[in-house]
């Protein structure tokens, strides 16, 4: 039967081994995986500016991006493909709460530079390779 020492060894040994594997994979992901998949060379000042705005206004508190965030407002990963740049610009610079189909968005009334930064951010996000997410609707007629 298993002794307490063996159980401790299983815990400590297993944890160390699996943590080291995790660390090695993380190094690979951070050093080459993510830069390649996200085309990190395309992250311009405007893209970073857009990300800062995205964070400062907690856009993730309603929307999802890469499928992460809250589930109150549309997924934004492919928003440029889906809606086009002009539509998104309209939403971002709206002076009254945007409420297509009834649900309100905060009226941010962003300046022209801010709108352009956010658009640059969404365009960069749009091109990130997400291993097939979001999938194409397969029951669409």
């Amino acid at each position: 039967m298993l002794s307490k020492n063996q159980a401790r060894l299983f815990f400590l040994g297993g944890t160390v081994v699996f943590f080291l594997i995790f660390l090695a994979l993380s190094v690979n992901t951070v050093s080459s995986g993510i830069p390649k998949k996200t085309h990190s060379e395309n992250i311009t000042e405007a893209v970073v500016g857009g990300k800062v705005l995205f964070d400062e206004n907690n856009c993730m508190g309603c929307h999802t991006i890469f499928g992460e965030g809250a589930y109150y407002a549309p997924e934004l990963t492919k928003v440029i493909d889906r809606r086009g740049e002009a539509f998104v610009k309209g939403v971002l610079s709206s002076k009254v709460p945007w409420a297509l189909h009834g649900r309100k968005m905060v009226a941010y009334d962003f300046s022209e530079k801010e709108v352009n930064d956010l658009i640059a951010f969404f365009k960069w996000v749009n091109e990130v390779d997400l291993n097939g997410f979001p999938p194409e609707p397969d029951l669409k007629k």
Partner: protein
Amino acid sequence: MKYKSQKVAYMFFALSMVLLLLQIVYGFIMAFAHAGYDGLHEIIAFNTATATHKNLLVVWLLSGFMGAAYYIIPEEAQRELVSVKLVLIQFWSLAIVGVVAVAGFHVGWWEGRKFLEIPRALDYLVVVNVLLFLGIILVTLFKGKEKTTTAMVLAMGLFFAALLYLPGMIWFDNQSMDSFFRWWVVHLWVEGVWELVMGGILAFLLIKLTGVDRELIEKWLYVIVGLTFLSGILGTGHHYYSIGAPKYWLMIGGIFSALEPLAFLGMALFAFAMYRKGEKNHPNKTALYWTLGTAIMSFAGAGLLGIAHTIPQVNMWTHGTLVTAMHGHLAFWGAYAMIVFSIISYSLPLMTGRKLYDTPGAHYAFWLSNIGMIGMTTAFAAAGVAQVYLERKVGLDFMVSQNALHAHFWVLIGAATLFTIGIIYYVVNFFKHGMPTDEALIDNK
């Protein structure tokens, strides 16, 4: 209660109760908004409500863990806490940072990073606070007469939880990198080191409530926390399927996520085996209910509903939908809220000397909150599956499909009302115990 300084746990538990009630209020605001009634939009927009709801959860659970540690560590180490004055400083600074953070969310002082919305400036205060907490706990433990496995596992969980907060404080220009390291905090907390905390508290309670030999309980504690890390560390991969990380995470995340329920299954089997083996004569049946309850509900919520969502072929469709909310609610409730309730139910009568367990209110609290939470989970599941079908499979516009989900949110509100009544019973029962007193000390010589 064996040591005077154990009484400090009461303050942390009381703070947990107050923040939990507040968390529920924000939950209702969000549920009504989802059902089409967003009357508070101008004052408390949805993103404010969700940041508040999630961070109150994190703070009240951490406060509960801290209270648990302040109660358990003296008893395990067989000595008083090194300084009650420092504990008081730590408590008030925690409460103040928590309140400032939540107030800040209402005026846009935050970072839009799910679960880690607390702004950087406050993050540093959190770090100082947690270091003070760890200092008190670790010094007490190492000055103590005994260093039991239960105490070591609990302390180790708390130590690594603090350490893992740090990767979440690094700024990245790249959204994918940001997300990658955000999960180092959130996932490795809830599916890693917090389970050590949970395991440590569970082992302590089983030793006290069942009377089974400590050596046996602690041996299985090692096996269970071993299984947790074996599956949970690489299980982080299920967050990396579609954030711009390499494809190998689909295989690694899929395989190790599938193993994650085993740790929870082990915990449930362990708790019941110890209960059956034990003497069954401990008078505090309420604490026993919560202890066995947390073992079952964490397996259901974190284990089974977790794997229902993390298989890569399924996750491709369900990722970023209300299906996540289904898993999230029962997992946090079963694994972490219920373990905090367990240690409170066990320790409160011992700190105050008032044996209010086995009252009708205590039973209503247990059953109503659990049935309510299962109802809420079912409502989220129905809404989530419908959303996946309408939006992801059929390709309807987001809001067109959302407007078809209102009925599920009314069911959610109904179930949440039941849940809230249970929680109110629990909180009323909590405060009925009155303040902790030295008269409740038992002779430990």
